[in-house]
């Protein structure tokens, strides 16, 4: 029997604390993380609310699998209406806190209302306290965390903390854990700040055991060999996600100068392998994970290992987007974002946008207060990031709402420099190289996201390789032999792998460990893991349906908020050919994109004109209850 979900519900306006239970038969349809978050969001607020009002709810959701002894199970989704996109908001994180939300007995924590003065939440099983946090307000994440440990006289704590950016409701503020990990995307930190909630603190508890531990051990006993046999995972362990920089640079698909190019001159100075050889001090991992992909860097007197190290996305947004080839400047930007609580993707991309505006004469030094926002000038990061986080001076206020809103204020053609979808800045994987991402960036319910589907190279893999064989377990695909191919096959790939990734985000499993292509464990092993964990006999089809249900709930929420196909669009620059580098000339056309989008909606069972789910699709997924919402 599927376990029931225990939801800790805290109303900060009413100062009430309740524990609610969702029966197992319902929980099984929305089994944690992103799906559970959406289920709670839809049932506890309206899609038309102001995301920064007391009416928004902020949900931290794990899953029945969180904390079991295997790699890639310590993940958590934060869900709320996003202030950045205006859509359903959704952001994942790893680390240790997911396990300890679960070890305290909770599948989700739902925050309602808004405190009058700053507070933090302390959880020790049923002992849940709303504690005063006036003395923590204004502090950077690391200081706040230290202060809380001192105050509680307790080291065995895990916490989710916002920095000044969240307090000031910067629209891309993040929620930080262990000073090194972030629920970065969609401005979840701003929602937390709007509720005057500085932190959620959980006491570490003993984790529970899976249904069949000895069977589960058959998946973990050879993990070292399994890693050694997988060159992608080896590279992830050695160079972190920053290793991706090397490949994108080599192929000429590293978004450069605010996406004007894919080739960065001097880019070898910011490669993942360069980081490994220079500033890397150590590695870090999430609870129970054997891969250790997290970076820890140190630059004496400048960057502290306490704040981890840059991921690929951060290297790109502060590096190639801004044409900066100084790794130290990028590492410092990463640290500042973790200290102040800012999403490194949106922050770096917004600064790159501002650099293009500055060079085009749309921003002047009077507004920037003497900061030379030129491409290549990485020294601006330490000046401008705190201003954004504090909403300080005109430039800080302007950029704190992201590039799309800044462009509306700047005018004079600044909007053509905006590289966003649904007002969220695009991550660093170029749709010209990976055209399935053109579809997924456009249709993804919470804006452009690179972790919402498998990437196209899986369709270019040898037909006897793991990548090809695993991905074809989801559906039958045609092989692809070059970059830039966007057709019905890619639309199908986008849809089928999006469902799989949506399911992983619901089961709260890491996409580097569990996946349909290059990862450590594939679809068959996932089914075994589920069986050994919960005695749940499932199938690929049932798992895909979980993902499909999650995506449809999001699309329906967005439809209620007024979103249609009109918002499923890409910046004009994405339809330009790559101008230089080894793959110069690679492009996707608008016609191909619109045709693929039509096909995607057909696969999804959505209306081609509105882009929203047909009633029949909702009924098929057991989501008929959605149509009673307004």
């Amino acid at each position: 029997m599927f376990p029931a979900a225990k939801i800790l519900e805290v109303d900060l306006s009413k100062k009430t604390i309740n524990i609610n239970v969702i029966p197992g038969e319902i929980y099984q349809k929305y089994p944690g993380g992103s799906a559970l978050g959406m289920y709670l969001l839809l049932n506890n607020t309206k899609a038309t609310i102001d995301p920064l009002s007391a009416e928004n709810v902020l949900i931290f959701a794990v899953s029945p699998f969180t904390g079991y002894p295997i790699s890639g199970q310590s993940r958590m989704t934060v869900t709320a209406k996003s202030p950045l996109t205006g859509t359903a908001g959704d952001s994942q994180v790893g680390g240790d806190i997911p396990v300890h939300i679960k070890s305290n007995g909770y599948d989700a924590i739902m925050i309602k209302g808004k405190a009058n003065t700053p507070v933090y939440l302390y959880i020790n099983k049923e002992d849940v306290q709303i504690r005063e946090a006036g003395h923590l307000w204004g502090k950077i994440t690391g200081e706040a965390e230290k202060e809380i440990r001192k105050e509680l006289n307790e080291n065995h704590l895990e916490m989710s903390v916002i920095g000044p950016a969240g307090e000031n409701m910067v629209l891309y503020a993040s929620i930080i854990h262990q000073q090194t990990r972030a629920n970065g995307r969609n401005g979840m930190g701003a929602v937390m700040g709007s509720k005057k909630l500085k932190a959620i603190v959980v006491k570490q508890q003993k984790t529970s055991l899976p249904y069949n531990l000895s069977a589960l051990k058959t998946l973990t006993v050879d993990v070292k060999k399994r890693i050694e046999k997988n060159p992608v995972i080896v590279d992830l362990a050695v160079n972190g996600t920053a290793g991706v920089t090397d490949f994108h640079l080599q192929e000429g698909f590293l978004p450069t100068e605010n996406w004007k190019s894919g080739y960065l001159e001097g880019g070898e100075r910011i490669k993942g392998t360069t980081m490994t050889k220079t500033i890397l001090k150590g590695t870090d991992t999430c609870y129970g994970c054997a891969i250790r992909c997290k970076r820890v860097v140190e630059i004496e007197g400048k960057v502290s290992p306490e704040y981890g190290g840059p991921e690929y996305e951060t290297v790109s947004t502060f590096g190639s987007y801004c044409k900066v080839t100084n790794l130290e400047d990028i590492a410092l930007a990463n640290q500042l974002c973790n200290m102040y609580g800012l999403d490194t993707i949106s922050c770096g991309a917004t600064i790159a946008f501002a650099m293009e505006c500055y060079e085009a004469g749309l921003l002047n030094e009077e507004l920037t207060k003497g900061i030379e926002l030129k491409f290549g000038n990485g020294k601006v990061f330490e000046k401008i990031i705190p201003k954004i986080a504090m909403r300080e001076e005109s430039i800080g206020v302007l950029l704190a709402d992201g590039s799309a809103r800044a462009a509306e204020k700047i005018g004079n053609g600044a909007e053509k420099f905006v590289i966003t979808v649904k007002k969220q800045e695009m991550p660093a994987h170029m749709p010209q190289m990976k055209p399935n991402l053109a579809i997924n960036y456009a249709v993804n319910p919470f804006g452009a996201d690179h972790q919402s589907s498998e990437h196209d190279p899986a369709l270019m893999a040898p037909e006897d390789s793991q990548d090809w064989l695993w991905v074809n377990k989801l559906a039958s695909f045609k092989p692809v032999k070059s970059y830039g191919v966007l057709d019905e096959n890619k639309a199908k790939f986008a849809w089928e792998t999006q469902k799989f990734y949506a399911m992983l985000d619901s089961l709260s499993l890491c996409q580097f460990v569990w996946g349909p292509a290059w990862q450590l464990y594939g679809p068959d092993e996932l089914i075994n893991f589920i069986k050994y964990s919960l005695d749940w006999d499932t199938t690929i089809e049932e798992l895909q349906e979980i993902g499909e249900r999650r995506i449809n709930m999001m699309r329906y929420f967005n439809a209620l908020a007024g979103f249609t196909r009109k918002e499923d669009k890409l910046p004009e620059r994405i339809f330009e050919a790559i101008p230089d580098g080894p793959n110069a000339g690679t492009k996707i056309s608008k016609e191909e994109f619109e045709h693929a989008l039509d096909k995607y909606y057909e696969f999804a069972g959505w209306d081609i004109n509105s882009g929203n789910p047909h009633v029949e699709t909702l009924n098929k997924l057991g989501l008929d209850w959605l149509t009673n919402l307004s």
Partner: protein
Amino acid sequence: MLKHLISLVWIGSLTYHKEKIDGEMMEVTINNKKEIIPDNITVAELIKQKNMRGNCSVWVNEKHLLLKEYDTFVIQANDDVKIIVILGGG
């Protein structure tokens, strides 16, 4: 005696090296660029020589090779080779 043996080995290795340079190189196209590579090189050796990390996908004269062919498929002069690193997200 030992000195004599070392000299022989040294002379032998020089001869081998000379042959590699003089007679065993060929021109091919790799990812649209002309390159000179050793003759009789297999796909697996080429990938290693080019220091390509991760999983690679290889086409030779438009033929998409299977992984199991990498150790035995020998590149010929004037072949058109395409190598792509199979890379996911991150």
